[in-house]
């Protein structure tokens, strides 16, 4: 016989269940709901023994809990800037570069964990992740309190890594650091989180894009240039594409909750057009970046691959008929993967620069 407990949000016990502190031996798994009205007033938990919850192997489990893949984008920017700096024999500080990279990844992981924690506390995950798509917190792999603590640890570690950079680096870094903190706050805090505010989309663009590239370059002592800003804009644009894809996949629930983001403002069809536009512009920007700052053969490569991939992506997006259709989430995953293929080619280009620098 299954064991359930339903608690109103106002119940003094509610917090202990939702945070996972009510018992050492048991986990309270929130039961998904299709009703936003219910989610605003009470939560039903299925109580399971912690040692009976099925979990994947250790590394996969923690990689999913920590969302380590989120660290990929900042790592790509860093790799690209460093590779180019090496190829052009620019002077940069390896120690500060290492500290900055670790700090950036910590910040991104900390922010992701904070968002998971917020989604869990606000019942957002109960409404959006149902069926086969449950998140680690919903599956009882970890508790909300542990997620919050890990988030705090990573955010502090990120900030701690930033300290030597601020002390040793250029004064302009203080401005960048302040902007970064503001963006982290906007994205991470529950009331202002990415699901709720249009401004969060802009913050993700800035945080993963220009702030990151310009900040990193300044931190390691590289001279600021149009090329560095362009790299930030490219990655930021791609990060914003990922946010738009997520918002589009959650359009139905966001709309029912009357949340305001680009997708709920534009609606199903125009939102789809926005995704097509965003993907196309990303590919065009990659070509322009290489035409202006790079080499012609890379511009031609991106022009060819970009045309093929965006063609596939746009054709798939145009075939979406329903927010509940079987091809809906599959197509959004495909577009995401197509974007990452372009990013992978970009990484290859960076590796090429590094090899070239070695040869010289």
């Amino acid at each position: 016989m299954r064991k359930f407990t339903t608690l109103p949000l106002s119940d003094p016990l509610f917090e202990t269940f939702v945070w996972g502190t009510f018992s050492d031996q048991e986990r309270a798994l929130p039961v998904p709901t299709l009703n936003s009205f219910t989610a605003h007033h009470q939560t039903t938990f299925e109580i399971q023994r912690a040692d009976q919850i099925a979990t994947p192997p250790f590394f996969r489990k923690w990689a999913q809990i920590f969302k380590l893949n989120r660290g990929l984008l900042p790592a790509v920017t860093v790799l690209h800037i460093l590779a180019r700096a090496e190829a052009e024999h620019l002077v940069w500080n390896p120690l500060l570069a290492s500290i900055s990279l670790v700090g950036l990844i910590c910040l991104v992981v900390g922010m992701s964990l904070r968002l998971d924690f917020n989604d869990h506390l606000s019942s957002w995950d109960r409404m959006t992740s149902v069926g086969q798509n449950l998140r680690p917190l919903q599956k009882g792999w970890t508790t909300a309190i542990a997620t919050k603590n890990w988030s705090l640890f990573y955010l502090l570690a990120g900030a701690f890594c930033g300290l030597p950079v601020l002390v040793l680096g250029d004064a302009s870094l203080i401005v960048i650091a302040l902007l970064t903190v503001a963006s982290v706050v906007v994205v991470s805090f529950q009331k202002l989180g990415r699901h709720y505010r249009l401004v969060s989309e802009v913050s993700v663009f800035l945080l993963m894009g220009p702030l990151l590239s310009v900040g990193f370059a300044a931190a390691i002592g590289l001279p600021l240039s149009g090329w560095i800003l362009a790299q930030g804009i490219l990655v930021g644009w791609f990060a914003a594409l990922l946010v738009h894809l997520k918002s589009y996949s959650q359009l139905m629930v966001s709309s029912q909750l009357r949340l305001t983001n680009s997708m709920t403002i534009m609606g199903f069809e125009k939102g789809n057009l926005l995704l097509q536009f965003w993907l196309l512009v990303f590919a065009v920007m990659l070509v322009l970046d290489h035409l202006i700052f790079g080499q012609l053969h890379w511009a031609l490569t991106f022009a060819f691959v970009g045309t093929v991939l965006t063609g596939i992506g746009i054709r798939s997006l145009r075939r979406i008929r329903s927010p509940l259709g079987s091809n809906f989430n599959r197509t959004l995953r495909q577009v995401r993967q197509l974007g990452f293929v372009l990013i992978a080619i970009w990484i290859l280009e960076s590796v090429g620069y590094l090899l070239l620098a070695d040869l010289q």
Partner: protein
Amino acid sequence: MDFKIYDSRDFPAYLPKLNELYDDLFSGGKGFRAKLIRLIGQELQLPEATQQLLAQTIEFIHNASLLHDDLIDGSPLRRGKSAAWKKYSPEYAVLAGDYLLARVMVNLSSFGNISLVQYTSQIISDLLEGEWLQDSLVGDWNLELAPLDRVHNLKTASLFKWCLRAPFFALQESNPVLHSTLEEMGTLLGQLFQRGDDLLDFDVRNDEGKALLGDLQSGYLNSFAAFAVPLAERQRLVGVKTLPEFVAVLGGQEQFAKQVRAFDESNQFLIDLYHHHLQHLATLLPASQKSLLNPLQPLTDVLYWRRSPAQAQAQNSVAKS
């Protein structure tokens, strides 16, 4: 108990065909939702006139949805007779459905309970959203259960939610925790009803003799088909006309029976959850209203297992003993 919720005087006598169309439409229905409202209304000691209004409201909304539904699905039959759009015209079917919804608003607003009017409007809007979304899924053979649940929550469950919550609105009882519990119970009843109904399509517990494979032939993959047929085999469903053909897609009679058992087992989660909410509801009701649990107890048996209320009572007694 008088289940008659429609009187020809409710509609203008001077509109050609309207009364005839409604006579056809309302006769032959089981009036399950109206009966549920009556049972709940009696336990909550609602005045007779209020019970009548609520019963009429739910039947009007339900029948309006049937008028529109049959037209959208192109179903030629309703309750063993020609569907309204077929017998009269698509235009009349649309207008008659719209008129029923308009009457709902006129009647409810005369009752003067703004919360009830607001909630009813929301339910009608949910119902139409569900219809709209369901139409967008026609011909999609690769669906999974989760998106179907969202459609059924809007389209089917909204009426069950209304049956459970509206009597409390009529009593001016708006405790959000109580309503949340009733909302979840309504969702579960709607899902169980829909899943039980979807099984009828494959002649499982089909004592009422419902036509087989109606959903598949309308190009709509229902919950049992989505559960039972592996994704790799879905395209084979196109053009399936008979039950033996469907059974063959699953790999034979034994496999079919196995999938039905697995489907029943997976739905037991919803049944357990419903009974948990029922227990939780008991903690929210004052002593004078606790008898409400009696008519709500056997509903999962009636709606999913398709047992008669008497059979369900017997089943419950066995389970308790």
